[in-house]
């Protein structure tokens, strides 16, 4: 991964962490969960939360989340979500 991609990844992750912490864990601080923690297993995001998250990423990153993309492999941790968005916005490959 080149330098530019690395930085973009950091940006995306930072934006997502900010949104998730503020929206779902408002009193817990920014480091309340690890990059690889499952949102589901840790109880970070619930059924209404997932709707908010989807709306947020569609709006913020100007992407369209297709039905078949709403699966844990794409969404169920900060790491997974970041690489999913990277793939969608086309920053992933050289």
């Amino acid at each position, binding site marked *: 991964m080149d330098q530019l991609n690395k930085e973009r990844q950091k940006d995306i992750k930072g934006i997502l962490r900010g949104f998730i912490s503020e929206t779902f864990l408002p009193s817990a601080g920014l480091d309340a969960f690890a990059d690889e923690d499952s949102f589901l297993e840790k109880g970070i995001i619930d059924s209404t939360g*997932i709707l*908010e998250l989807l709306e947020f990423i569609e709006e913020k990153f100007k992407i369209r989340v297709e*039905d078949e993309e*709403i*699966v844990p492999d794409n969404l169920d941790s900060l790491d997974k979500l970041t690489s999913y968005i990277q793939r969608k916005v086309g920053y992933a490959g050289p």
Partner: protein
Amino acid sequence: MLVHEFLEGSAARFPDKVALICEGRSLSFLEMEGLANRLSNALIEAGFQRQDRGAIFLESSPEAVVSIFGILKAGGVFLVINPQVKAKKIEYILNDCQVKILITDAKHLMEIREILPGCPSLQSILLADYESLEEKAIENLTIPLNSYCRALKDYPATPPPKRCIDLDLASLIYTSGSMGVPKGVMLTHLNMVSAANSIIEYLENTPDDIIINVLPLSFDYGLYQVLMALKFGGTVVLESSFLYLYKIIDLIVKEKVTGFPIVPTIAALLFKLKNLEGNDFSRLRYLTNTAQALPPKYIDQLQKIFPHTKIYSMYGLTECKRVSYLPPEELKKRPTSVGKAMPNTEVYIVDENGRKITRPGEIGELVVRGANVMAGYWNLPEETERVLGPGPIPGERVLYTGDLFKMDEEGFLYFVCRKDDILKVAGERVSPKEIENTLYELDDVLEAAVVGVEDEILGKAIKAFVVLKKSSSLKENDIIRLCSKRLESYLVPKYVEIREELPKSFHGKTAKKELG
């Protein structure tokens, strides 16, 4: 009949048929019966007595289901603890009913390791994934850890001798009680077998049915999906969550699912998908809904997505599992009704003096009579006394649901609200439900909850919390104006608050106590 005989019966009838599918694994009835027998033999050998309590703290999985049956076969009482319950509450529950054996895995054990020294009744912890445990991480633990896998290997697959009769307890289901302390609903084998029989009868389940269960096994609605399918010889597709809904849709199509139990939150998630109509749902025979009524708008939308699927609106409470269901053919005619009593259950409505109400439209408390009514709350004789009252036969006890209902001319039931929820506004009895239904009729409203707030003049004033579509431009005053066009003036909310979301309980019900 005993609950674990569901599995024994199906294992004898359909030994090689698939009983359970979970994350790509599948188990036949015979395999599951064998595993449950092995586990029960291990438990008995370890000193587990008839009616001892065994707790299961696992994600929805084959291990969780085998554990339920292993505990039952050993004559014990099982309780399933939701994997998201916090350690403090688990400590309360384990001590409240004196759990002797806990079946969990390393990850969940880590989350509760601090409370374990405070649970003296625990004699053994069985780990479903013994190998992955790092021993040093729990060095202060004095309770012996045992391997679930080794128990399954070391003990025979032959069934242990019967230890129970059907008046013995089969399960404790913890529900939230007043003051935030959970109450254990005591269910006998007879209670559970009766409820399962009635539900299977009206859903017309057959061994050809394939049920997808995305609801937690700690929730009676989720638990019964598994118990019932094992009884009628169908297949269960088990998923630990409905959060990532496309996975569920995919499974429904791929596994040719015929039954999909939902709660309104799942419907709300479904409506967010963009291309649902493109899927082949022709095998899906029915949807069921309970926990909270489906707003009529949701019913129309669901019927559009699933044109060939019957929708059952149902009503129940953990204390008796299920009470009533609306035959799907009645849904168009009376979308807000929860129907009539299910087979082998009787219901009636009583006024404040306990007299039966027969006049249509009159509101009173719903009373349930049937073999499905619980034995009581664990260790809470006073709370039990409050809900189990005398019935028509001397000595029998019927369930006072605490839910207010009315009936129409043809005897169909309509939920009004919880007895505790009814608001007295300027001397009038107001049902929050009625106002919520009106709010749901507004196109921009996604969710609504109505509560009473203190008011100097009115005693209680009506306050509505609503979640609007993102695209909506409605303001608080617009909502009040729209309500006043549709409701009698005393029912129009005095206050409206627009929120991003409403607080939810574990099972997706709106947690009204946190509002207002």
